[in-house]
């Protein structure tokens, strides 16, 4: 089954226009950054904590909305039906849950310790323990790399289906575009492009939603359209737990609601806003716009795609074929651009976190504290290029359903980072021994549940059992050992604290 070649040409041209505009944002951001002049690390990774609320909100939303939103969820909806859509819906509140609970909290402490990354925050909270820092950094890099690969896979699949171009060309094309505008401008470039990308995503989702409703109208309405599935082998798409059992459905909902605590790219964005007013605007903007986009993309698309294109061999092709079926070519091109925008912005945000983790948190802070700004810049650029190359290589042989990779990454991050971050912020008694046990315990449980002994997940998402293990280890080991150093608790909880102590980066025994 193929999309008409004339339609593919129009889609491709619209897409190229979008790519050109995105690249321009990187160039403009670089010129503005050069004119301002500042410390490389602060400017590149956090924008000097000077971003307004709307920009921050659109940036967080753009980095959180991903190929999962535009391709993976629709593909999973195509495969699993309405039961999946409900289970996935808990993630709509993810921005609010994360920023409301951790946004202000971590931003205040980040200013006290002059920190600009999740690893630095965790190190500061847990006595600058290098074993923990390396464990957290390795988790970040591994699971974010999976996440990056899922983005490239989703985008390249969509690109190949809609434009008729080769999958590998799609992989390389927008992988390289992301690398360029990230290299050129850092987080400022990501932020500038995110405003434009957020707008494109909104237009794309609106266009698809309206087109779907018009097509449903031609078929006698949504209910009539869905009722064509009744009595067929696909009626389970409409049925309560027709394709997913209740236990798994609940575990998926828990993952969606809570995994945000372990998302380093979202947390890094949260510590970048300039004041609480900006944070509130960010929550409102990201919540409102992302909910609207989630609703427009997910509520009907997957099951409708099954009604209109029942014979797709790959569920991930559901969205491209749906768009090509119900939308005019130029609008389908904008939808492709919207999906790619979501992918590129998420990819860029995660890329910055991976590079920050490797270049700053591990190379500079642990192995080479005296490194110059210029050398750090070079190391960062080399890491960006190498990571993109590695992710492209990982994406060459894609899996069947890319949403599974998204859940793998989200679950891994949530289980390993979420517990030390959340407990560190709200439980004074948490210490580095509990955090080490939690991180490594959760990581090993997660790997075992995914690859070795799936039965330990009990038929649920592995995230659930891993978080339970992580929380149990955090509590038990922390209570069995001495509390964190007094100065640390003052920095993280106190009204008064010692500023020199706050800026310490050496391990505190």
């Amino acid at each position, binding site marked *: 089954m193929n999309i008409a070649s004339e339609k593919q040409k129009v889609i491709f041209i619209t897409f190229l226009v979008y790519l050109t505009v995105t690249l321009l944002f990187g160039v403009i951001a670089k010129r503005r950054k050069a004119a301002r002049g500042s410390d490389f690390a602060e400017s590149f990774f956090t924008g000097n904590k000077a971003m307004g609320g709307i920009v921050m909100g659109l940036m967080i939303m753009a980095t959180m909305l991903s190929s999962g939103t535009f391709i993976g969820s629709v593909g999973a909806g195509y495969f699993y039906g*309405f*039961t999946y859509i*409900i*289970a996935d*819906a*808990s993630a*709509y*509140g993810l921005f*609010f*849950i994360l920023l*409301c*609970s*951790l946004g*202000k*909290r971590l931003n*205040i402490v980040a*200013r006290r310790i002059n920190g600009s990354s999740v690893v630095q925050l965790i190190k500061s909270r847990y006595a600058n323990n290098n074993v923990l820092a390396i464990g957290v950094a390795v988790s970040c890099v591994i699971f974010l790399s999976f996440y990056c690969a899922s983005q490239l896979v989703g985008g390249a699949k969509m690109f190949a289906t809609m434009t008729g171009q080769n999958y590998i060309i799609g992989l390389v094309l927008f992988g390289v575009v992301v690398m360029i505008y990230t290299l050129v401008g850092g987080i400022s470039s990501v932020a500038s492009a995110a405003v434009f990308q957020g707008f494109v995503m909104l237009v794309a989702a609106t266009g698809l939603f309206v087109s779907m409703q018009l097509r449903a109208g031609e078929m006698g309405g*949504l209910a009539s*359209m*869905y009722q064509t599935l009744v009595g067929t082998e696909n*009626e389970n798409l*409409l*049925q*309560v*737990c027709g394709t997913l059992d209740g236990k798994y*459905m*609940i575990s998926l*909902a*828990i993952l*969606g*609601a809570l995994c945000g605590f372990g998302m380093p790219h979202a947390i890094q964005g949260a510590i970048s806003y300039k004041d*609480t*007013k900006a*944070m*509130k605007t960010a*929550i*409102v903007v990201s*919540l*409102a716009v992302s*909910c609207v986009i989630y*609703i427009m993309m997910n*509520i*009907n698309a997957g099951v409708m795609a099954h009604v209109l294109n029942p014979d797709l061999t790959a569920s991930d092709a559901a969205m491209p074929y749906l768009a090509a079926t119900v939308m005019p070519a130029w609008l389908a091109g904008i939808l492709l651009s919207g999906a790619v925008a979501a992918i590129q912005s998420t990819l860029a945000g995660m890329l910055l976190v991976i590079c920050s983790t490797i270049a700053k948190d591990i190379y500079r802070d642990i192995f080479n504290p005296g490194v110059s700004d210029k050398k750090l810049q070079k190391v960062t650029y080399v890491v960006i290029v190498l990571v993109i190359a590695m992710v492209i290589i990982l994406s060459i042989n894609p899996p069947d359903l890319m949403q599974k990779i998204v859940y793998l990454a989200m679950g891994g991050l949530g289980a390993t980072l979420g517990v030390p971050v959340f407990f560190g*912020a*709200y439980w004074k008694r948490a210490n580095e021994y509990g955090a080490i046990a939690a991180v490594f315990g959760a990581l090993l449980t997660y790997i075992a549940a995914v690859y070795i002994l799936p039965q330990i997940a009990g038929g649920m998402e592995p995230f659930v059992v891993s978080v339970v293990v992580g929380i149990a280890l955090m509590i038990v080991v922390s209570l069995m050992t001495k*509390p964190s*150093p*007094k*100065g640390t*608790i*003052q920095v993280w*909880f*106190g*009204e*008064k*604290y*010692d*500023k*020199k*102590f706050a800026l310490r980066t050496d391990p505190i025994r």
Partner: protein
Amino acid sequence: MKQEDLSTRDYDLSTIQEDRRFLRCRRETIVALIVAILLVVLPEAITLLPKWGPVSGYRYMLGMPMWFTLAYATVIACCIFALLYSILGIREDPLDDEEDVNSDLPNEEAKS
């Protein structure tokens, strides 16, 4: 206070006076966790608890199976609550510490 004293692990946690902003963050976190629980419990309860019967007997609301429309409505309601709380409930605390000549000293020395 000496750096070695700040490195001590033999102290009473309750003597650390908590920043008022962090106390407010704690309250806001409770609201966030309540929203998280509602987002998991409500839609799944509507989906799993009632006996909706065979697919051929489903009623439809807004074009979609009724169980789905009702469950999805609870998600939207939670998001609207979260939006309203963000606008009206989250306090605009300053993120920088207030300037204080004693701000380098731990609480007990600042008081004396």
